[in-house]
C-alpha cells in the first residue's frame, strides 16, 4: 500500500515536470534545462507569498495567488525576453539559454532566500492511515488530485478551447499558423506560462513532501528523464515516463542499492535512448531534407 502511495506521489511530481517540458518542446522545439530550478523557485515563491502578511502562519490563498502571479510573470518574461529571440538560431542556443536561466534562478535562491532549507507546511497533518502504520497527509492526497485535475484540464484545453487548438496548430507548423492569423507570440507565451505553472505546482508538492533547497533542483533532471523516456512530444508519454522513472527509483532503493538511485534515471535514459531514441510514445523526427 505504502509502496503504491509513494510511487504514485513521486510519479505525480515527475509527471508535472515532464508535462511542462513536453509542452515547451512541442511549442518551440526547446528542451528546458531550467525546469527543476523553475519548480523549486516556484515552491519558494509559494512559501514566501504565503508567509508575506501573516506573521509565521501560512496563508494558503495568498500562497496560491503568489504562485500563479509568479507563473504568469516568469513564463511570459522568459518567452518575451529570451526564447522569442532564439528562433532560427542553432539548436544549442535555446538549450544553453535555458541552462543560463537555470543558473540565474539558482543564484536567486541563494541571494533572495539565502539558500535556506524550506518546507511547505500546508496540509501536512496525517489524513489517511495505511496498513502498517504509514500515513498519507492531506497534501499527498491533494497532490495526486491536483495532478490528475491538471492533466484533465490540459486535455480539455487542447481539445475544446480555441486557444488550445491554435496551440496544437502552432506546434505542428508555426509558419502556417501565423499565416492563418494565429497570434504565435500569445500562444507560445501561454505555453511557457502553463509549463511554469506545472513546474511550480510540482515544486510546491515537492516542498511539502521533502524540502526546498538549492540541491533539490535535481528533480528537474528526473523530470527531463521522464519526458525523454516517454517521448519529448507526447503528454501521455510524460505520465508513463514519470511512472517508469519513479518506479525504477523506488525499486532500486528498496531492492538493489539506495546509493545507485541518483544515477539511475540516467541509466534508464541510456537504455531507452539506445533502443528507442524518440521515447516510448514520441514520434520519430523526420530526417533533414537536402
Amino acid at each position, binding site marked *: 500500500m*505504502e509502496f503504491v502511495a509513494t510511487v504514485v506521489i513521486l510519479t505525480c*511530481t515527475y509527471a508535472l515536470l515532464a508535462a511542462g517540458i513536453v509542452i515547451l518542446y512541442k511549442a518551440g522545439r526547446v528542451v528546458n534545462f531550467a525546469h527543476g530550478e523553475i519548480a523549486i523557485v516556484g515552491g519558494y515563491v509559494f512559501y514566501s507569498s504565503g508567509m508575506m502578511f501573516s506573521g509565521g502562519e501560512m496563508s494558503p490563498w495568498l500562497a496560491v495567488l503568489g504562485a500563479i502571479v509568479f507563473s504568469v510573470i516568469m513564463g511570459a518574461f522568459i518567452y518575451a525576453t529570451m526564447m522569442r529571440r532564439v528562433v532560427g538560431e542553432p539548436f544549442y542556443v535555446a538549450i544553453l539559454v535555458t541552462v543560463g536561466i537555470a543558473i540565474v534562478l539558482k543564484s536567486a535562491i541563494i541571494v533572495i532566500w*539565502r539558500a535556506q532549507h524550506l*518546507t511547505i507546511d500546508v496540509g501536512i497533518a496525517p489524513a489517511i492511515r495505511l496498513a502498517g502504520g504509514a*500515513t498519507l497527509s492531506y497534501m499527498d492526497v491533494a497532490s495526486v488530485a491536483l495532478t490528475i485535475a491538471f492533466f484533465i484540464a490540459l486535455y480539455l484545453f487542447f481539445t475544446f478551447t480555441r486557444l488550445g487548438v491554435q496551440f496544437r496548430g502552432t506546434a505542428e507548423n508555426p509558419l502556417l499558423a501565423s499565416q492563418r492569423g494565429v497570434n504565435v507570440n500569445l500562444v507560445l507565451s501561454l505555453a511557457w506560462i502553463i509549463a511554469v505553472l506545472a513546474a511550480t505546482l510540482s515544486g510546491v508538492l515537492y516542498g511539502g513532501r*521533502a*524540502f526546498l533547497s538549492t540541491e533539490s533542483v535535481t528533480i528537474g533532471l528526473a523530470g527531463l528523464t521522464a519526458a525523454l523516456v516517454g517521448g519529448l512530444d507526447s503528454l501521455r508519454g510524460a505520465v508513463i515516463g514519470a511512472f517508469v522513472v519513479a518506479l525504477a527509483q523506488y525499486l532500486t532503493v528498496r531492492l538493489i542499492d*539506495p546509493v545507485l538511485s*541518483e544515477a539511475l534515471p540516467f541509466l534508464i535514459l541510456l537504455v531507452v535512448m539506445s533502443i528507442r531514441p524518440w521515447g516510448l510514445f514520441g514520434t520519430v523526427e523526420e530526417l533533414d531534407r537536402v
Partner: protein
Amino acid sequence: MQKKFVFRGLAAATIAACLAGFSPAQAQDAYKIGYITDLSGPLASSYTPTWEGFELYIKALNDRGGIGGKKVDVVLDDDGLKADRAVAAAKKQTERDNVLGIFGLSLSSTQGPVYAEMRKIGVPVITTFSGILDALPPAQPFSYSTGVVFEVAGDAIGELIQNIKKGGKVVGMTIDSVGGRAALAHNKKLVLAAGGQWDEVIFPVATSDFTPFAQAANEKKPDIVVGHYGSGQNLGVIPALRRSGYTGPYVVASYGVTEDTIRAAAQRAGSGDNIFYVSRYSSAFDKNPSVAEVAAAQKKYGTSKPFSSMHVTGWALGKFAEEALKKCGWPCTRDKLDKIVQTLKVDMGGLTGGPIEMVAGDGYGPTYWRLYAWNAKSNEMEPKSGWVKREAKGYK
C-alpha cells in the same frame, strides 16, 4: 549598436574590478584573522549560524576594546562548499589580507585542501566542524579543530544512545559520503559492543525525497534510528520516518543541526515525541550563564538565523581565538600563533562539558558530548544525560 556599448562596459567594468582588487595589502593596526565557511552552499543553514556566533563574539570583543587595545578584524569568505573556492579564499586571505590564522571552514571536502595548502605556507587553521582526521593525534602541523569529528561523534553517539534503550536494534542512516560512513562504522562498533544489533541505510548525497529510504529503515524494525547528516536531511527524514509508521526513538547526530530545524521537522512529523539530539556544545535552551551570555549578545547585535547551538559553537571558537591572540601578544605572527595554539587550554564555562585543550601532537583534545531530548510540549530541548568525555586518540 547599443549592445556593443553594453558589452564594452561590461568588459571594462570587470577588468577594472580585477585590477582594483589586486592592489597590495595596506598596513594594519588590528589582529587580522580569516574566516572561511559555506554561507551559500548546501550546508549554509548550519554554517551561517556558526559564523554568526563567531561574529557575535568578535563584535562583543571589539566593543569591549579589543585585545590590549587592538581590534580584531575578520576577513570573511564564502566557499559554497567547494574545495577550489575554499583554497582560493585561503590563499587570498593569507597573501592579500595577511591574516594570522584561518578559522571556521565547512565540510571535510573543503577543509582537507585548505589544511594541506596552509601547511605549506605555515598558517594555523582552526576549524569548527571537522570530518577530517588531520587534527586527531598524531595531528598534522598547523591543523586544529574544536568541533565535531565524524569518528569521534560516531563513538560518542554509540555510547550515549545506551541511555535511551540498552541492547536494542539500531539502524544508522547516513548520506553516501566518506565521513558519514566513518561515523556509522564507529557508531556500529559501540552498539555491537553493548550487545545490540546493527543495520544501516545509506542514500545518495543529492537525495531530497526521503520517503523510500525511510520506509527501508522502518522495514528493518529498529528500536532506535540514528541519523548521521546535516539539517536538510533531518528535515526530510524525520517526517518521512513518521509517515512510514515508525514512532520509536530517533537520534539526531548534531552535524550542524540547529534546534529550529528539529522544531520544524517535529512539526512536519506531526509530533516531536521520541526525538533525541547528541551535541558537542550546549544547546541554546540550556540555562547557564555562558549560554545566557551568547543569547544576550545575540539579542544585542542581532542575527539572521534564530538562536541555536550553532551560535554557541561559533561563540566558543571566538573565545578560543581571543585567548590565542591574547597570548600571542602584539605584534603577533603566524608561527607564534601556531606555537600558542599547540598547547592552548581555554575554559569554556557552560558552553560545553569542559575546556578546549590542545596538547603537542593533538590538534583536537578531549571533547564532551551530551544527549538531549526534544520536549514536544514545551518545544524545547532538555538534557537527558551528563557530559560524556571522549579522549582524542588515533582513529586512523
